[in-house]
């Protein structure tokens, strides 16, 4: 008889936790997409929470220090690991992505201090939403630490 108290209590807690997880997931989850996938979704994805990854194109980086507005473009990089391996690894894939003019690009706008890790061929993971014109407004900018995926071997001299 007394055991039931604990079982009921436990189930209540379990229920509460399940509810917490479910409601938090539903309200805060974001699609995690590559640029090609984003374009494929078209207008249905406007104003939804999104996370996009891409390769930063160095020459497009513009920063207005007055308004702290940063704009830059990212090129599509595949999200599939097997695909990345055939391209020669993540570093090589990022390199190819910025060189290839046929890759889809996405313009990103971010207001805040210029991140230290933002540079040519860096992998950027931006969180925010895309507007009706297809420009991505980033609330959060995550830049991968380059030493984690750069070439493990040095360039040959000469």
């Amino acid at each position, binding site marked *: 008889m007394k055991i039931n108290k604990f079982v009921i209590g436990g189930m209540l807690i379990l229920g509460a936790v399940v509810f917490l997880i479910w409601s938090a997931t539903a309200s805060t*989850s974001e699609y*995690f997409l590559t640029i090609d996938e984003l374009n494929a979704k078209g207008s249905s994805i406007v104003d939804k929470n999104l996370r996009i990854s891409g390769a930063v194109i160095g020459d497009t980086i513009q920063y207005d220090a007055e308004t702290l507005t940063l704009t830059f473009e990212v090129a599509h990089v595949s999200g599939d690991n097997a695909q990345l391996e055939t391209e020669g690894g993540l570093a090589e894939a990022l390199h190819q992505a910025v060189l290839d003019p046929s890759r889809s690009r996405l313009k990103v706008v971010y207001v805040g201090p210029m991140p230290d890790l933002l540079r040519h061929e860096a992998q950027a993971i931006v969180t925010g939403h895309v507007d009706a014109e297809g420009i991505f407004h980033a609330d959060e900018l995550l830049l991968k630490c380059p030493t984690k995926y750069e070439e493990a*071997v040095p360039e040959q001299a000469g």
Partner: protein
Amino acid sequence: MIADFGFGVLVVSFLVTLYSVFAAIYGEVKKSAAMVESARRAMLLTWPLLTLTAGTLIYLLVNNHYEVQFVYEVTSRSMPTYLKVTAWWGGQAGSLLFWSWLMSAFASLVTLRNWDRDREFLPWVIVVACVTMAFFIGMNVFFENPFAQLYQTFDGINPFTFQPADSILFTPQDGRGLNPLLRHPGMVIHPPMLYLGFVSFVIPYAFAMAALITGRTDDRWIRITRRWTLWAWLFLTFGLVLGGRWAYDVLGWGGYWGWDPVEIAAFMPWLTGTAFLHSVMIQEKRGMMKHWNMLLIILTYDLVIFGTFLTRSGVLSSVHAFAQSAIGPLFFGFIGITLITSVALIIYRWAALKSETEMTSMLSREALFLLNNLLFMSILVVCFWGVIYPLISELFTGEKVTVGPPFYERATGPLWAALLFLMGIAPLSAWGHSTVKTLGRALWKPAVGAIAITIAIYIYFTNNIYALIGFFLVALVLLVTIYEYWRGAYARQRSQGENIFVAFWNLTGRNRRRYGGYIIHLSIMLMAIGILGIELFQKETQGTVTAGDSIDIAGYTVTYREVASWDDTPKGVNYTRAVVDVYQNGIYLGELHPRKDFYFDSQQNMTIPGNRSTMKDDLYVLLVDWQPISADGATLKIYVNPLVNWLWMGSLLFMIGIVIAAWPDKDPEHVTVRADRQLKQTSAAD
């Protein structure tokens, strides 16, 4: 040559650990004490061998041997010597070796203790420790060799363990160097602290497995490993706090915890470890929760392996990640096998783990500890869910969905609040039996005090409902804990005639676990104050200013004076430093020097804030941009983080609390008489 020697010693270490495993099993099965002793000696041998291996690697790191791939990746000529040494754990291969080295040290420490009462545990502790070691050393030997050298072949330059045909050794002029973001004292000790925590948890796990295998499923294994668990928890906590402090000091986003999967990976074993620390007390005092404790330590062990893997392989960062290298599947294989084996052992010994008493009162201390465990496990489930959700959603819906900090904050917030409340009432409950009346009687005074404090906060400071709930709970726990502590000291003062301070000291010394625990709870309250302050009341602003201009924020006035830039060529850095004056209500408080450092070798910027810290708040100024001619101005981003230093002060007190709780007792250990467990009601002061 030297690198080959290092690799050779590494291979010998691997073989020695394998020998130790088989010798221990053979010795135990065939009842050969000589073989078990041989296994023990082999295990003792691993530490000198691994020290030699590590020493070789450090020699290579410090002496610019860039033909060794690992040295090339993590050092460069411009790095000072101490950073070259710590680069040992600056990359995957080196940190795996560091893990193994720590494991061998702890395993050796354990075997050096007095084993007279626990001879039957020894072989199995050796087996578990050496299997774990063999796994990590094996990773190094077969997949991530820290001694691999660069050879030039027709295909280009690649790392190899053994020189390929038709190749020559390639020695780069300089190494890539450690990312400057990692060249910070906090970042230097953070990985070792985390690894110390991780590796220490293997020891209680080893004893748990030994207990299951030998059938000695009483709480002997818990008593032996109690200090190990505390020290493991200390190091893990310290490692996590250091990581947060580093992020706050150097990453320049004004925060200390980002709910990044890598952070969570190190946090999850902390959650189960904390739950374990509490629930073992139930087993010791009431003979209950034996299955649960076994499960918890197994979970902690596997989460430790999982955490090591995640924090080092960058596996969860890309869009569709999981296993990015060969290491991934191997880690999962190891976790899977150990999990299945361990759970099978629990099932095998299910009957022997039966509880000695029943839980009858929902407000008894054991019931509240059980609730504590459930809450910690719930937070763990939330974290784990957040981490694997992207994979699950991809598997089941084809869409890649992820969650970020808002998810974790929303889902765990109420759970943390519940834990806070529990911390307030648990010290007042009694083992065996408590009712609403007895608890209420003990609780009402602190509760009234907490309500009074909350009302004062409401009147003078804020009407933010989350803050009010948070501060109410913090005040409640503070008052209850201080009250309990004071009551004990007062009773002692009256009975022993000591003055109150001596009473406090002796009280703590006589019952270190309990009062160490109270100090830890107090410190968590201080940390909670800091967290509530910065999370709920952080202010930020940014602007571009010319010399003499000011930015106002939260009562402070920050006046920009000048910026200067200069090179430090030996260190390979360019410093750009701004000078700002800080005023509050017209009173001059001092200067701050926010900086941007540019490292030439890695072409990497580092933003160092100018920070003015008081217990009331932090004024945190970042130099975002500047014009080369100093008169033209700079762009500053400024945060005011209220109460944040309570977080850091609290974590210091936390460490002290753990040390007190873990400090060996003066008196010899008392053996509990089993009959005691059937005692009826015990008093509230146990």
